[in-house]
């Protein structure tokens, strides 16, 4: 087990370096100049630009910039924002809890509603509840998040007046609920479908027949024997999905005016703030890799047939 974790951590290093390098190159090697962008259309002394660049280490060769960046990471140094001069680490520390709250809320919605709908559909495979769930999830998959966001905003805030259209207080879970539903909708649909097919398949498994033949009550057959087996593929998806949730936050946070990781990333992208973008993407990748390792370990708990060697 320990060796497995160690090996997995080692395997993550090339992926981690690859992703950060990729983003680093995209931000710095492609055309566009972040310092120039700071001043918009103003004409400015090239010498002044050069001075700012030297100060930030942007005049160094690209590989050296990347090396310096990598070396700073273990000390929690994510670099400095060009526009504000703030350390990117500080920006993250402020924005992360907000996005984490939003993502966690969305995650809970995905798990409860998605698995619930999937169970209902899977147990009724081929009958009307299955068709209804299939249809509803198809809608959720087809309507892009930003369209759904505005539809919710119009219906629940502008028309029904249930909640405020924009999030004014990111610690108010009530206000976060609608954005969380929007963020959750796509993954929720996938989780529901995955659960459905998993349940529908396992329902016919031999061990389910055994459980019934043992004279177990229906509830026990479903909750102990069916659910646990059916959750194995769903857990994998949920793990991979965390990264998507973080990226989806860019759109959702924009619509509902939430100042989390997503909107920081979005602003930074437009200002061509390389260090901020790379820092935030690095963070998302770390979270993604950490959770996928966690999911792999959880796998062993759910499925004893998996042995880590």
């Amino acid at each position, binding site marked *: 087990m320990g060796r497995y974790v160690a090996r997995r951590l080692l395997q993550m290093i090339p992926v981690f370096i690859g992703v950060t390098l990729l983003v680093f190159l995209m931000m710095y090697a492609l055309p566009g100049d972040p310092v120039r962008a700071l001043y918009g259309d103003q004409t400015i002394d090239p010498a002044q630009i050069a001075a700012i660049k030297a100060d930030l280490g942007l005049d160094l060769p690209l590989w050296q910039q990347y090396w310096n960046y990598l070396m700073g990471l273990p000390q929690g140094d994510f670099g400095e924002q060009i526009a504000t001069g703030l350390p990117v680490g500080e920006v993250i520390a402020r924005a992360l809890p907000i996005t984490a709250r939003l993502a966690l809320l969305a995650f809970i919605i995905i798990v409860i509603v998605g698995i619930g709908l999937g169970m209902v559909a899977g147990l009724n495979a081929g009958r009307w509840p299955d068709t209804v769930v299939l249809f509803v999830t198809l809608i959720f998959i087809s309507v892009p998040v930003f369209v759904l966001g505005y539809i919710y905003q119009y219906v629940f805030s502008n028309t029904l007046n249930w909640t405020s259209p924009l999030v004014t207080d990111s610690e108010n879970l009530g206000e976060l609920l609608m954005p969380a539903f929007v963020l959750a909708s796509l993954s929720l649909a996938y989780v529901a479908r995955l659960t459905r097919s998993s349940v529908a398949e396992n329902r016919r*498994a031999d061990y389910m027949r055994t459980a019934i*033949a043992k004279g177990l009550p229906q509830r026990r057959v479903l909750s102990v*024997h069916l659910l646990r087996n059916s959750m194995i593929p769903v857990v994998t998806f949920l793990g991979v999905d965390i990264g998507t949730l973080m990226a989806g936050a860019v759109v959702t946070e924009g619509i509902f005016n939430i100042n989390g990781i997503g909107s920081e990333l979005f602003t930074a992208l437009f200002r061509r703030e390389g260090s901020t973008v790379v820092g935030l993407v690095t963070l998302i990748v770390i979270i993604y890799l950490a959770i996928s390792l966690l999911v792999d370990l959880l796998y062993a708990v759910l499925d004893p047939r998996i042995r880590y060697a």
Partner: protein
Amino acid sequence: MTTTQKTADLPAAKSADSAGTPLLQVKDLHVEFHTRDGVVKAINGVNYSVDSGETLAVLGESGSGKSVTAQAIMGILDMPPGRIPSGEILYRGQDMLTMSGEERRKIRGRKIAMIFQDALSSLNPVLSVGYQLGEMFRVHQGLSKKDAKAKAIELMDRVRIPAAKERVNDYPHQFSGGMRQRIMIAMALALEPDLIIADEPTTALDVTVQAQVMDLLAELQREYNMGLILITHDLGVVADVADKIAVMYAGRIVETAPVHELYKRPAHPYTKGLLDSIPRLDHKGSELYAIKGLPPNMARVPAGCAFNPRCDRAQDICRTEVPALHPVTEQDGTTLVGRGSACHFWKETIHG
């Protein structure tokens, strides 16, 4: 708890026996499956019965309906697509098909238990063996988790699984095929049921292990005086343990007989063909007999006797009329107890 239950049951069992009610009786059972390609009649009027301490072997090829009958008895048929349009399944004289779901559930596992063919897929892969065995006691007798585990270890000892105490927390995939089948047997035996249905319990096992598992099953059956329905396609297994045999073909019983009489004098060409196709040491070198053709497609069962396209004796009547299960007699008309044959030419088959 266990003892009170047993004493409460015993007089009832006795009186039922003395009144001549068999432990389990299947009466004119029909099962059909509604599929996309039409209705498949999997079982067409099956009758059989088992008493306490008795072993009935149900013999037949895949698709003959032998497993479907067992599933109907257990109440684990997939319905839909399955349907039971008519028939009765009497447990101690009570029709289980008219019982409520809860009544049936209480019979399952406690009174009638089942052993499945493939123990690996029939045991839940993500739950420990001890948990799955203990579940019987927890659900049916309300035992605590700890007591249930102790009982599970006891059961594993009974079916002679070595180092039961150490292995109780292992998972099904960590056991060998034979050991897994013993766990299935232990699970079926857990509550000392009146009847065990074993659906090809040894088919998936190595030959050497097959014998061990069958012996164990037979021994435990004697000890608890249980009824046993042994579903198999293996004539070798049957000879040693069964008291009587029902041979099924295309959803019907084509021959019934006490076990040794069947081997000595089959009264149905199909049974005769099966016996002739057993490889025998004393016939070494001669060509092995095989029944010609294939088992029928259950969606298109031949008219008349379903066996007619593969039968050497087939006449015109066989292609038009479904033979009833005739009582089989000696040449002089003496009845042979428990014998029947669904062949128009049973006399010729057994006597000529």
